[in-house]
């Protein structure tokens, strides 16, 4: 296809308010150099947390923009809220008094069923959402007044997860269908992998995530398998069957260097896999998660891993290298949080949950 030309057609009109240049990612951790070292764990800095906003029903997902300036949350109440991080920080800063700060810069009501996942366009001010109503919707958040989507993809299945290609020209959708749907964002043409091995009945995809270069993507599915797919041909390069036993794999993401996959499952484990060999490199144990779509995420430097303990309603943090638990903090939610998302650019994360609330956490400076 004619790349570049077609890019111009899509979303080019939104350029006026695109992101600032995305901050250089902090140095990511090199696991390969240190994997087998048994050093002492780093300590995870203390965080302060604040209730930021509330949905009208369970908050199901949250996502930071690639430049770390925005946070979007989606809820069962079918709404999406968009926050500006700087305003959230201001709000935390001036809790002492003064006038109230409203960190919400947009609310989108356009779905008719719960929102399952969100993603930001890598360059433009566009937010996409995947929902139970079988649609993927595109919102332009440079226009504060617009509450409705400006484009809609009608999928054939419940959309459980969405992930933008780093160019912003393609979008992956993980649905109840066992193969990820690849959409060309300019034409809305949908593509599937041409070579699919037999995937069992329970292959619905819980999460799909592109790698940093788009060279591959990873899916976590209900059958407990983690699958790695080639970014060019969309062929399945590696299947880790039963990555989480018979339990559902609920989240999967690639490290920035594309060498490792971090996955989380309903078997109460968080695991780190080597992409090249498919071998299990680390296990992060000690957090129970058997009910919710639990997320295990890296912090911005990939030095730490964060997840949720449903039983004790705590946020658990491990040192990524030593797999040692370095922090357990009460989540401050009523009931365990449903989702955890870390900022890609700074020591801050967001949690949201069944108590409908969104909490923002940031390192105490």
């Amino acid at each position, binding site marked *: 296809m004619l790349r570049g030309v077609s890019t111009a057609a899509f979303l080019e009109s939104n350029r006026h308010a695109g992101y600032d240049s995305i901050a250089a990612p902090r140095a990511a951790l090199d696991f390969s150099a240190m994997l087998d070292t048994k050093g002492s764990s780093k300590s995870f800095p203390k965080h302060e947390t604040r209730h930021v906003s509330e949905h009208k029903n369970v908050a199901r997902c949250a996502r930071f923009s690639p430049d770390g300036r925005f946070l979007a949350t989606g809820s069962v109440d079918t709404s999406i809220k968009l926050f500006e991080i700087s305003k959230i920080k201001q709000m935390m800063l001036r809790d002492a008094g003064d006038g109230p700060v409203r960190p919400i810069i947009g609310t989108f009501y356009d779905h008719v069923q719960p929102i399952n996942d969100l993603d930001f366009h890598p360059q433009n001010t566009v937010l996409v959402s995947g929902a139970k109503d079988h649609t993927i919707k595109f919102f332009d958040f440079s226009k504060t007044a617009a509450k409705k989507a400006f484009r809609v993809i009608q999928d054939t299945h419940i959309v459980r997860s969405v992930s933008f290609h780093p160019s912003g020209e393609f979008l992956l959708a993980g649905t109840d269908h066992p193969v990820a749907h690849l959409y060309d964002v300019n034409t809305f043409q949908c593509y599937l*992998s041409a070579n699919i091995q037999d995937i069992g009945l329970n292959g619905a995809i819980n999460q799909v995530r592109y790698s940093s270069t788009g060279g591959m993507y990873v899916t976590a599915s209900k059958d407990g398998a983690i699958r790695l797919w080639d970014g060019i041909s*969309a062929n399945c390069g590696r299947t880790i069957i039963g990555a989480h036993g018979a339990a559902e794999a609920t989240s999967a993401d690639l490290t920035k260097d594309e060498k490792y996959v971090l996955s989380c499952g309903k078997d109460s484990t968080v695991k780190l896999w080597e992409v090249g060999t498919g071998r299990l490199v680390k296990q992060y144990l000690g957090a129970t998660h058997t009910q919710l779509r639990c997320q295990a995420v890296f912090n911005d430097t990939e030095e730490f891993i964060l997840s949720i303990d449903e039983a004790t309603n705590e946020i658990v943090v491990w040192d990524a290298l030593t797999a040692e638990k370095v922090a357990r903090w009460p989540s401050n939610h009523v009931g365990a949080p449903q989702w955890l998302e870390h900022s890609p650019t700074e020591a801050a994360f967001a949690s949201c949950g069944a108590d409908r609330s969104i909490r923002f956490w940031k390192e105490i400076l």
Partner: protein
Amino acid sequence: MTTTDKYNVEAAELLANEALHLPISEAVPVYEQLLATFPTAAKYWKQYVEAHMAVNNDDAVKHIFSRCLLNCLHIPLWRCYIRFIRKVNDKKGIEGQEETRKAFDFMLNYVGADIASGPVWMEYTAFLKSLPMMLQTQNLAEETQRMTSVRKAYQKAIITPTHHIEQLWREYENFENSVSRALAKGLLSEYQPKYNSARAVYRERKKFADEIDWNMLAVPPSGTSKEEMQWIAWKRFLAFEKGNPQRIDSASANKRIAFTYEQCLMYLYHYPDIWYDYAMWHAKSGSVDSAIKIFQRALKALPDSEMLKYAYAELEESRGSIQASKKVYESLLGDDGNATALSHIQFIRFLRRTEGVEAARKYFMDARKSPNCTYHVYVAYAMMAFCLDKDAKFAHNVFEAGLKRFMHEPSYILEYADFLSRLNDDRNIRALFERALSSLPPEESVEIWKRFTQFEQTYGDLSSILKVEQRRKEALSRAGDEGESALNSSLQDVISRYSFMDLWPCSSKDMDHLTRQEWLSKNITKKIEKPTPANGVSSVDKRSSAVSTTSNSVKVVYPDTSKMVVYDPRQKIGLTGPLQPGVAVALPPNDTMGAAGAPNVLKDILKTLPPALATFVANLPAVEGPSPDVDFVLAICLQSNIPLMPVRTANSTKLQTGPAPSTSDLSGSSKFKPTRDRHAGKRKDVDKQDDEDSTTVQSQPLPRDAFKLRQLRKARGASSQTGSASYGSAFSGEMSGSTG
């Protein structure tokens, strides 16, 4: 103590907390130390002065207030001041009240424009109202005077955009009504519009003020994002005030702007740009004297800022105060020992401008002896003599004198050569190059060689050109590690000899080839250490591009869709086989939109539909496999229900048919594209509610909730005209190709 330690905010806060618990005598040195570091930290001043007030140390309190008030336009601090004044004058009868009133006037004159000054205005009016009652004087003249002063205060307060503006307005209304109902009407209606505009401005102003952290301590910029945000917030606030949003007279507006600048400088005390902007703003708005004062304060705040000194000297010089300007220059020179070359140069230039050739020459002679006198000073002075005084011979002498001292400076040689070439003195230029090249080591003479070859290309004949180039290669090959390959004459040399300005004897493509070949040939001999970069950039380039932060620099891998299967739910409606030979798209049997779920939903919906449409829907063919979302189809059908529309303008008739079929495209493809333009264009004239409803109709499945359904139908009936008008713009948006 280093600067970072000195301005450690946390340590300062700790110290201030400690001081709270110390007896006053011990706390004083702590406060003095804190305030020496943070002279604009109003909160510390307040804490300091309150400590004194607690022990009724009135003289000390007065002294502290005199030190801080004018630099810290901070409402809590000033309110503390008023409390003190009122307390001191409490028992002094009329005189005391007069003092207090003066203090109020003084205060409001300084900080009355603050967004948080509302309570002060209230306190002031309350104070004014209370005056005569204490005096027990009820004679008429004084009563009138009292009324007038209260009225004046209110009238000032209600045109100041503060947090309490609405409250103040109500108080003012009550006040006027209590004085005289008849008079009140006229006065209130006169002031209502002014108040309204102030209130509108307040709402805007609050947004800007909310961005600002009023607790921040003034520390030198260190580049943290919080500092940057605050800087931006202040810049925005200043820009807002400069726009004079309230359209008040320019004197009041200027006062407000100056006030904002002053406040800004409390927090951005160490930011030279703010000081400069403030001073230049004063200068621009006509009061150069104020600008001068700002510069003087700026230099007290940032005594090491050369930029500010030059800016200040420039302003003084341009308004003709040469002596003042000279003093600034002299301060730049400092003690003889540490004057920089640049300050020498600028001072010589200044002297030349203001006192003439002789003064400049005299100073140059002195400056020569300074240990910090670099070749720059010689070059600057010689060029001044040559260009301004037109004294080529003298300039030549200066250069020649400098050469003895700066023979080892390639840049000096180049400047000298430049000068000589202006004189067209090719003999001396050649001699200069030869002299320099014989004394300079090869690694420092690269530039000289380059200039020498350029010179020969301009002045020499072909043989001299070739000769110099050969010599250059020999000399440089000894220095660099380029090896013998550089010695051989290459095509690049020909290109460099035969290009002129931006004209080249080859295409850029040729150049690329040559560069790449050169790079390759360099690497022929080297061991291959790592794979060759695909695009031929050197490893240095590659690294730097990886560091640059835009996502484009990271190599992005694109999907190759030609290797994939097109997945099109529409084609699967009459599913007879795989889409493409040999490829079966696996579909999970637990598809929720399968045959089991649909009929029930369908029945529910059929009940709510108009009979005609219900029949139509009921007759739709049964669908197998992945099917379109029924809700979605229904939404489209509902919306294209043309006969229901009661009013039909020519416009809407024409356009109705346009978008309806397009939305029936179930894959939700490009037909949805133009919606952005539509949003932008029509918002002005179409009521927002209608707008959203029409969007709902167009792109949303029908809600199952009966209430919503009814609403929807109502909206369709009532607002069909606006609805179709919006389609119109959508349509035109599509036609124009949403170039946006």
